[in-house]
């Protein structure tokens, strides 16, 4: 049973004890554990830490020279992002774990939460809407095999994680549609099941929505999930191809990242989902910075800014 009240998550009990550790670590500067992830720090006011969503790394970008000067380039250290604009990321090592939640603030990466069981736990962004953030917490055995997955809600005030009591199974993706949290679960027969539950209720029982869902990206806009068919996002009469990385803003602006087959660099494209308008693009993208109503694409040799109005649609594009 993938979503069951019969099997209680083990993590919440461990969490109580670990919460004290969290408070302690938040108030002091603990020694960096062995194998901890190293994030590049700006050496001057010209340098900012940005995220490379395709390379899954943080990049130190010189805003004057407009070049990337360094990266988080330790093997198997990767950065994971939400499918909505957020300054929260998770980062960890695929072999040794040591995951943490990292916030990009004014061009700097700040670790806001380190998992108490660094060797056995990993955490990945699941769903966020600007006010709320939910993560996928995965616990591994000593041999590296998975023991369980849970969805946890991030409390930014206390910097703590709170699990949904009745959610477990091979949870894969999530999306917030208004007050509802949707998530997919991969079944042993490779089928994908879609569930939903009220995002505010940690004790809620998940409701099964579909036993024939897909592993396509799970995005939500205007309180409903965006349909995906034949590897294309379908919104009313608009069809837009699914790319490697797809981020949907609350204004319905789809920001996509993928390989550019000509330059063999990262290409970004920005679309208005409601009418399919192409708002902007760039190649040689080294990383991205989210703005209140826009996105800054830090490229090799230039910076492209694509802005949109609060209601959606292009506002200005200096580039």
């Amino acid at each position: 049973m993938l979503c069951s009240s019969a099997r209680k998550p083990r993590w919440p009990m461990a969490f109580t004890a670990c919460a004290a550790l969290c408070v302690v670590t938040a108030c002091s500067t603990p020694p960096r554990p062995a194998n901890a992830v190293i994030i590049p720090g700006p050496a001057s006011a010209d340098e900012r830490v940005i995220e490379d969503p395709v390379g899954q790394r943080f990049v130190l970008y010189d805003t004057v020279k407009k070049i990337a000067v360094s990266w988080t380039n330790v093997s198997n250290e990767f950065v994971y992002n939400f499918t909505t604009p957020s300054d929260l990321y998770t980062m960890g090592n695929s072999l040794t774990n040591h995951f943490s939640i990292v916030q990009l603030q004014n061009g700097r990466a700040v670790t806001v939460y380190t998992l108490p069981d660094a060797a056995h736990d990993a955490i990945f962004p699941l769903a966020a809407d600007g006010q709320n953030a939910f993560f996928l917490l995965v616990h591994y055995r000593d041999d590296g095999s998975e023991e369980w997955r849970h969805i946890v809600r991030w409390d930014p005030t206390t910097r703590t994680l709170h699990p949904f009591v009745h959610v477990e199974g091979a949870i894969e993706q999530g999306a917030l549609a208004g007050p509802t949290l949707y998530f997919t679960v991969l079944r042993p027969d490779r089928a994908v099941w879609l569930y939903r539950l009220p995002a505010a209720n940690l004790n809620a029982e998940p409701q099964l929505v579909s036993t024939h869902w897909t592993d396509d990206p799970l995005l939500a806009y205007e309180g409903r999930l965006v349909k995906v068919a034949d590897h294309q996002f379908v919104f009313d009469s608009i069809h837009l191809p699914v790319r490697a990385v797809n981020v949907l803003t609350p204004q319905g602006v789809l920001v996509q990242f993928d390989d550019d087959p000509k330059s063999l660099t990262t290409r970004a494209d920005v679309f208005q989902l409601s009418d399919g308008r192409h708002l902007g693009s760039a190649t040689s993208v080294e990383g991205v910075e989210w703005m209140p109503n826009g996105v800054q694409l830090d490229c090799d040799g230039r910076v492209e800014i694509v802005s949109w109005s609060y209601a959606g649609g292009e506002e200005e594009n200096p580039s």
Partner: protein
Amino acid sequence: MRRTMLNAISAAVVSLAFVSPTVAADESNSIVTTQDYLPHTNTSQTLTLPSGEGSLTANVWRSTFASQTGNALTWNWQVSAVYSGSRTVEWIRTQWYSQADLRNGASITMGISGDSATASYSSSWQTVRTQVKYWTNDNGAKESDYRGNVVIGPQSDYKQGSIVTVNTATVKLAGDPKTYAISAGV
């Protein structure tokens, strides 16, 4: 990207034998095709994935000797990322660069648009690295590969034996939230 650039690359890298056809440049700047054995340097690094998910291998191959055309030196190179295992591959990527010790404004390119790098106009040796480029397959293929020529010029401002080519293989498997990588260099 949803196609395999080179289906035969891995076989070529593993066999270490004949590369067919091989493109080389002769002294008169004309391009010729040869079936001859091409001496090369190669290496592979394999990462065993946790929990019996299989393994990921980074292969990199570069011809041992450069052909000289005028003032330029040219090597052939090939890179690949190969996943071995039963899991479904969401995407697999091969990512490469080369570097060499250069001086006096000499340059290096791996033949991809915008990847060239140039030493400053100084008589002292500098390690100069091409831009990192990559190729991703997200069509379920278990392999991603690429090949080309690396060109350095002028030959007199290249420190013999200093060229290095590095390939990083990265894979994302369906059902596993983690991404895995391994690098190899020659």
